[in-house]
């Protein structure tokens, strides 16, 4: 197609066309977020585009609506327990898989990574039934357990990658110098794994805060998390209050992700960096 063009020019045109396509695709990915933010400042109850003015009233309604306040606090309770428990469990699983050979290791690994494959509604339905069977279907416990299992594969992966990159000589040196196994763990292994653990915890916390489908099954009116409360609101009202909350969440996650990228290197956590 570029036969008669000078090669230099053809290369420029090709690369220009390529980046044009990439920018278009990125626009497709980001326009919904932009539309949400624009709508959140709309003065009217009817959602129209473009908004007919500027107003902050939906932000006021979003932060003063009691259901959202309760749901936000529920979410914080569930997330702080779930991501911390997932961090402890995930670190144990990662060590077990990387360091120890024992019968059934691959089975254990498969079972604990399967929440990635099993549809969230199946997981949610299962934990709802389990909660009923154990008599804990009302309350935070079953919500926390569900979230721990759902975010566990992400924490395990993050810690596992750090563990693979850890120089075993450091631990052996400490042990040879007389450090007890507990001391090696707390003074050498955990500090060296800290970036992977922190990155995994962060991803777990964000995923738990925003998890919706399984939460819809295992929460009730008293324990519903923010996404569930938002879903209920969307079904009942059509004003831009949800746009206001969404705008806050979009800006918050973008900020957190940007900072995380600076500190941990998201490319490394998500393992897309070139080797």
């Amino acid at each position, binding site marked *: 197609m570029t036969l008669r063009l000078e090669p230099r020019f053809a290369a420029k045109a090709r690369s220009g066309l390529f980046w044009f396509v990439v920018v278009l695709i990125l626009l497709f990915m980001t326009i919904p977020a932009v*539309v949400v933010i624009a709508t959140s400042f709309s003065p009217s109850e009817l959602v129209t*585009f473009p908004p007919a003015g500027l107003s902050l009233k939906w932000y006021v309604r979003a932060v003063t609506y009691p259901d959202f306040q309760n749901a936000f606090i529920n979410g914080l309770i569930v997330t702080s327990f779930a991501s911390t428990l997932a961090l402890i469990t995930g670190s144990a699983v990662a060590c077990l898989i990387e360091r120890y050979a024992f019968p059934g290791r691959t089975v254990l690994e498969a079972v604990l990574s399967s929440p990635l494959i099993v*549809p969230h509604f199946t997981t949610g339905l*299962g934990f709802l039934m389990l909660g009923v069977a154990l008599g804990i279907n009302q309350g935070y416990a079953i919500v926390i357990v569900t979230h721990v299992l759902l975010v566990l594969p992400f924490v395990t992966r993050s810690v596992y990658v750090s563990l693979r990159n850890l120089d075993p000589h450091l631990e052996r040196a400490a042990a040879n110098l007389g450090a007890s*196994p507990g001391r090696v763990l707390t003074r050498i292994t955990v500090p060296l794994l800290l970036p992977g653990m922190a990155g995994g915890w962060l991803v777990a916390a964000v995923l738990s805060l925003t998890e919706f*489908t399984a939460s819809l099954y295992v929460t009730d009116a008293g324990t519903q998390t923010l996404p569930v409360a938002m879903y209920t609101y969307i079904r009942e009202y059509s004003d831009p209050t949800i746009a206001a909350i*969404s705008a806050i969440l979009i800006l918050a996650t*973008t900020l957190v992700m940007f900072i995380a990228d600076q500190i941990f290197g998201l490319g490394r956590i*998500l393992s*897309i960096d070139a080797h």
Partner: protein
Amino acid sequence: MSAAGTGAPRRRPFFLPFLLVSLIAAGLFLAALGDVLHYSVRLFIPGSIEVGGFTLANFARLLRPIYRTVLLATLIISFLTAIFTLLLGYPVAYALVRVRRGWVRSLLIVLAITPLFTGEIVRTYAWILVLGTNGFINSILKALGIIGAPLSMLYTSFGVILALVQFSMPVMIMLLATAISHVDRSCERAAANLGASPLMVFWRVTLPLTTPGIVSGAVVIFAWTMSAFSTPQLIGGGKVLMLSNLVYLEGLTNLDFPLAAALSLLALVVAIGSLGLMRPAIARLERKATLY
């Protein structure tokens, strides 16, 4: 693994506590799945969440035309979503891996990956605003004079697939970027030195070397879309039904736990089945790729 190569005997502290914690987690997940399996073979008693004796009637109910239609729709929507996500994801993944400027790379990572973390409700709601009768697309098309009456995109398969594609992009981009970052650049350079044009290098070297990533990306998104719930629920608005919506309807609205459990198992089998079929295909592709 790592213990084998080092020669020195490795001590194994903390094996039991680590194992105990892992087994508790695995046990809880298996118990939840076991409950789904258990309920799927129990008799539904209308008006009660108590279940009756053992039966296979729930699976027989799955054979009704309505469930077959919904299963087929779920498969078609998931397939189309996987294909379109692949086509749109590849250029972004390629740019992400090959761009040299650090800040462009960071920007691409944040733009491409952040949507994954804003949660499905926020993203689904955003698409309601984009696709609605007075929404973003209709307002723009009207302002440009392209359409007189608003297009109806909400409550259509088109709208559901569009939202699902945007939803699946971050995961697809991550999987493809991993594959592209593993391509040995010297193969590309060799082809270029032998006179292949850049397009030819991409078409005959880079693309074939990334086929394992392409297949796994497409299959993962297919299985992932099988389990999408909020998008068909809110954008489909009851007019576009996927398995997930039926599970919700039967389980939480009609309280027919046995049928909901049978439907969930069906979705689980399709998801695991497609991923299981992928493994040998990828192994074959990887063997082929090393021959190049």
